């Protein structure tokens, strides 16, 4: 497929997804949670799974960008800015997803105003507030000089650049050196922040002793590794599409593919370890959720989506000679990135669908008191809309933001 038609497909799907999302959002705003299918047993559903998915993509791509800006790995330099931009966009998508999930959306500010420091959710919120500020600042300093340069051009693009430059005019080499220093400092601070905050998302689940399938010290670690694997996988796709695509980014895409393969294998190791320990122990409360995931009504999410499409096929693609062809590598990346949504669903839903007290779901007759959960149309549409927004933001980013520098020359 030639890159032009690939781009057209990209824009069309972005617009269509976004438009479909509006239907879901309309329902969410008019009728609250009535059209959502979760209840008081499975209290969290697709929106929470999407949230931890996007937030993992964000933390993962940020940590990969730090390979460039902290550890100075030249191999990934071409995707440095793209990785930071991806981290910003996916973080935004995560926050929108979880915002939809709140019972009172317009009280979201309470988490800053009335934070309970005993709550892992509060730690997470404070940490990602710091992370948002850090990310946006880092991105701005990465782009500053190019924004200033582009701001001199006439027309709407120049105007956007002047606006985004926030009045900065300095193009001297000294200013650029200062920018690089700031980026390096922010990226360095960002590494522990991203680790803590995504580990914190894992801890949010890990600390819940009431849900034995989550209650494991491995959880914060698994969350980190899966963030790196999924974020890296997404970046291989993005690197193959944007900035002249796979033809120019060939080596970067292949290098990313190798790294993602390693991370994915590490993630599989951790997940297998969790399962083996749980099944060896055989404590019913602990194994019940895992049994649900691998043999419950949604067994195919585990076997087909997560294992075959999201793990085995990409591993084969990356190990065979296809691993040296950027097109196959980016396809593997796409499969892994999509497969991780299955991983996230399989963390959230079976973990909740095991009754805490036997007979609870039969005690009162209500659709809200059931262990069976399938996301409703509204829930899917909201998330499709969020994905659409993400695609559009990437598109605009590609159109408007300065591209990667080449051999020290600014291309606008």
């Amino acid at each position: 497929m030639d890159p032009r038609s690939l781009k057209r497909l990209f824009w069309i799907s972005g617009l269509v997804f976004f438009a479909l999302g509006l239907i879901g959002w309309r329902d969410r705003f008019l009728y609250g949670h009535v059209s959502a299918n979760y209840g008081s047993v499975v209290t969290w559903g697709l929106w929470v799974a999407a949230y931890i998915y996007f937030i993992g993509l964000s933390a993962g791509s940020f940590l990969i960008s730090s390979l460039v800006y902290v550890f100075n790995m030249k191999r990934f330099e071409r995707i440095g800015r793209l990785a930071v931009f991806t981290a910003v966009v996916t973080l935004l998508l995560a926050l929108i997803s979880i915002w939809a999930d709140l019972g009172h959306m317009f009280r979201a500010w309470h988490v800053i105003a009335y934070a309970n420091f005993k709550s892992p959710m509060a730690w997470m919120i404070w940490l990602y507030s710091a992370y948002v500020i850090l990310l946006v600042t880092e991105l701005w300093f990465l782009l500053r000089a190019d924004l200033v340069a582009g701001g001199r051009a006439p027309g709407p693009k120049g105007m956007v650049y002047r606006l985004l430059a926030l009045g900065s005019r300095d193009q001297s080499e000294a200013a650029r050196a200062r920018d690089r220093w700031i980026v390096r400092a922010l990226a360095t601070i960002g590494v522990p922040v991203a680790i803590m905050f995504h580990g914190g998302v894992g801890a949010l689940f890990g600390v819940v002793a009431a849900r034995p399938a989550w209650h494991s010290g491995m959880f914060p670690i698994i969350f980190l590794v899966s963030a790196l694997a999924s974020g890296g996988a997404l970046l291989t796709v993005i690197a193959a599409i944007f900035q002249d695509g796979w033809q120019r980014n060939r080596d970067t895409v292949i290098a990313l593919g190798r790294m993602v393969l390693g991370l994915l294998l590490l993630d599989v190791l951790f997940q297998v370890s969790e399962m083996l320990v749980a099944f060896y122990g055989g404590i019913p409360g602990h194994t019940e959720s895992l049994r649900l995931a691998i043999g419950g009504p949604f067994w195919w999410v585990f076997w087909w989506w997560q294992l075959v499409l999201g793990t085995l096929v990409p591993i084969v693609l990356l190990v065979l000679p296809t691993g040296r062809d950027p097109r196959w590598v980016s396809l593997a990346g796409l499969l892994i990135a999509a497969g991780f949504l299955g991983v996230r669903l399989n963390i959230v839903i079976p973990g909740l669908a095991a009754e805490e007290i036997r007979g609870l779901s039969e005690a009162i007759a209500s659709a809200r008191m059931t262990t069976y959960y399938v996301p409703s149309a509204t829930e899917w549409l909201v998330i499709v809309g969020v994905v659409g927004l993400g695609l559009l933001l990437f598109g605009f980013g590609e159109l408007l933001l300065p591209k990667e520098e080449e051999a020290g020359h600014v291309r606008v």
Partner: protein
Amino acid sequence: MAESPARTRRKFRYGMVIDTRRCVGCKACVVACKAENKTPPGVAYTVVVEHALPTGPNDKPLFMTKPCFHCERPPCVDVCPVSATFKREQDGIVVIDYDRCIGCRYCITACPYGARFFDFGENYPSVAEKTAYARVPSPEYRQFRKRAADTSPVGNVRKCTLCVHLQDAGGRYDQAAGRWPACAKTCTGRAIFFGDFNDPESEVARLLSERHGVRLKEELGTEPNVHYLL
């Protein structure tokens, strides 16, 4: 008593002793609770779970009425990101501040006993709007709220309050006057005993000293204030 009431400096330590041998599984408590607290569909402050005990021809079903246990160490309180749910200083009743709760439902996931429910804002279709019942406000924490979209408690997490709205100004209940948790008041088999564990003369304290009570999921260290007699 198994637990150590000396640790608490509270005025009252309200809780329940539930005699499973007296429970016939009539679910009058569930209905009484619904009528008292006007909970919407899908929200129940107390439920009766039932299952047959395994093996043997002589086994009878086990019924277990299950309100909120008002744990001494409630995991729901620790996880709430905005401190909207808390254990009351004076009597240990675990409550929710509806105006602060953001509806994230982390407390529901953290409760090992399934004692919390999310209010989706679904109304009783048969009584919606036009009937007198729909106009009766619910007595949540003496606030007497009316249900309307986008206003609390719709979009909040809800739970058993031990009918806290029936307390007098001093925090006391009065069984003789009928100011008593609805489930305990209505129980046909007199299986639900409610009272103050801090008062050694109370029915609940005496029952626990005479008979062996168990609490659910002791291994989690939550120290529930509801004891079951087997």
